[in-house]
């Protein structure tokens, strides 16, 4: 936004002062709406086609060549559907819930740096803002379940809230590790700290021991936040009918789906900024061409994270709700705390080689220990006391 303001202020030098400001506000908003909604639409298509290929079938390929008009067809279908609201439902809350599902995801995009010098809003508390806003989407899940006046929806909503809240903790702690290493909450500063190095690649945090663990923790947390498989208990299609969005039809349902996908994409964007080097890649540098290349690298990495999400969705079965909670509190949380210790050791060790060895050993040993401590009980052969 600042860059746009500086560029535009020159042209509007002799106009009222609000004009460059208005343009500087409008441009990032339009950018987010245009780019990310398009990415969302085609992510739905790519997901369906990829899942189809994984499952030995074609994805949608009837609507346009290779199905590229499918998102448009889906949009039209959803808009012309009848909007059914249950008679006893709480109308106001029922109306608001999908809206509240979408807005945090859109807000999240404003702190994701897209290219060198291009972030919609340059907050110096970027990461804090991101987590605060993503947690607000929990409210939408609960509102959706409550307002439907349906016991199953309420149950789905309860489980959804439990899931989201418990996966917030390791996710935030994994991000804390990165913030500790960088020393700033601003997403731009975090990306800048990953520049330089061999081909602009070797400084990425994912190539550090604590960064790798943090990446895995954050990615798992991000998948649980947006309710993607394998954590889609809230909206499991074969489970509790459709969980908290059973009673929604037409555009409201589409808004819930949009909220979920946008949250996935936004969290992918934040993962890329925090662990995968943001817009840094070979060729990123100042100047127009360098900026263009940096945007290319960002979107390539975003696409890779989305592809990883889709790959995981096509592979892993749904986690049972008690396994889900156990996983978050008994494995991910201790791992994230140990990760923070590891970052601290890394930061204060002068010799990098020693830091590598020590942190790698700490993290591997704790992983193995956690696995052993959480292993399911092996059932032994029965022995009988009074066998004759």
């Amino acid at each position, binding site marked *: 936004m600042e860059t746009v303001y500086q560029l535009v202020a020159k042209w509007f030098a002799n106009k009222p002062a609000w004009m460059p400001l208005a343009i500087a506000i409008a441009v990032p908003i339009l950018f987010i709406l245009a780019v990310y909604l398009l990415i969302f639409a085609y992510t739905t298509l790519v997901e369906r086609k*990829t899942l189809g*290929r*994984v*499952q*030995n*079938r*074609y994805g949608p390929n009837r609507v346009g060549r290779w199905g590229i008009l499918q998102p448009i067809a889906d949009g039209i279908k959803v808009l012309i559907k009848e909007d059914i609201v249950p008679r006893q439902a709480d109308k106001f809350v029922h109306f608001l819930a999908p809206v509240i599902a979408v807005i945090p995801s859109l807000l999240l995009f404003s702190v994701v740096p897209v290219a060198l010098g291009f972030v919609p809003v340059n907050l110096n508390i970027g990461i804090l803002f991101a987590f605060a806003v993503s947690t607000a989407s929990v409210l939408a899940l609960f509102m959706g379940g409550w307002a439907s006046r349906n016991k199953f929806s309420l149950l789905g909503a309860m489980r959804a809230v439990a899931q989201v809240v418990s996966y917030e903790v390791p996710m935030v702690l994994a991000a804390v590790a990165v913030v500790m290493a960088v020393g700033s909450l601003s997403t731009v500063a975090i990306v800048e700290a990953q520049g330089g190095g061999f081909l602009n690649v070797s400084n990425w945090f994912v190539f550090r021991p604590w960064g790798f663990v943090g990446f895995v923790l954050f990615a798992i947390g991000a998948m649980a936040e947006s309710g993607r498989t394998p954590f889609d208990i809230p909206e499991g299609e074969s489970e509790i009918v459709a969980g908290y969005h059973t009673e929604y039809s037409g555009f409201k349902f589409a808004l819930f789906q949009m909220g979920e996908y946008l949250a996935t994409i936004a969290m992918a964007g934040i993962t890329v900024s925090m662990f995968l080097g943001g817009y840094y890649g070979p060729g990123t540098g100042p100047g127009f061409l360098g900026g263009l290349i940096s945007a290319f690298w960002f979107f390539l990495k975003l696409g890779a994270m989305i592809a990883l999400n889709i*790959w*995981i969705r*096509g*592979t*892993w079965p749904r986690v049972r709700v008690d396994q889900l909670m156990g996983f978050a509190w008994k*494995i991910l949380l201790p791992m994230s705390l140990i990760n923070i210790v590891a970052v601290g050791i890394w930061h204060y060790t002068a010799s990098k080689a020693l830091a590598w060895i020590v942190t790698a050993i700490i993290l591997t040993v704790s*992983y*193995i220990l*956690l*696995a052993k401590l959480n292993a399911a009980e092996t059932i032994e052969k029965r022995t009988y006391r009074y066998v004759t």
Partner: protein
Amino acid sequence: MGFLGKGLLDGMVVTARNFIGSYFDKERLVTIQYPEERMELPENSRTFPFLVYDGTPDRLRCTACKICETECPPQCIYIVMDRDEKGKPRQRPKIFDIDISVCMQCQICVEVCPFDAIKMDNDYEKSQHGRFNELVTHLPDLLKPNEYYHKVKPTEASKVDAKLKAEAEKKAKKAAGAKPAAAPAKTGAPPAATEPSPAPKAFGASSG
């Protein structure tokens, strides 16, 4: 060497292999996009009967003997013999109706036909817009050439052709041998070798 999460990663390898393989390997993409593509049916698949003709539609093999009409369990065949002006039967059907909503594809009509005239087709796209009269197939729609029979069921058609040819030769030889030109100089006139009939044993195979 199983660490926590190894199964997850193995699963991802399987899916990746499926995904990439689906672009190269026919086995990993088994969709047949009907109606642009159709599945290859095995030779023995059958739906409803049809009548075979050799060459032109008036050289059909059926002689309206009504054996299939009698043997058909749900009685879905209706035959009326063609008669000429004087009322003498020509050995061909005037009306040959098969009601495919009744036909149970048991193939008994094929098994009992002495002339190898009625055979099973494997065309399944027979929907009509009505339930009663529209589902009765009449004689013009039932007549299909021998080449079609070869296309649909090659081995069976070859066997039937060989059997018919053998019978035709036997008949010709018998006819030639029935007028012995005086001398038994025509050695080997009665065919010494009765060729074993290669066709699948049809009831009433002796057509003479």
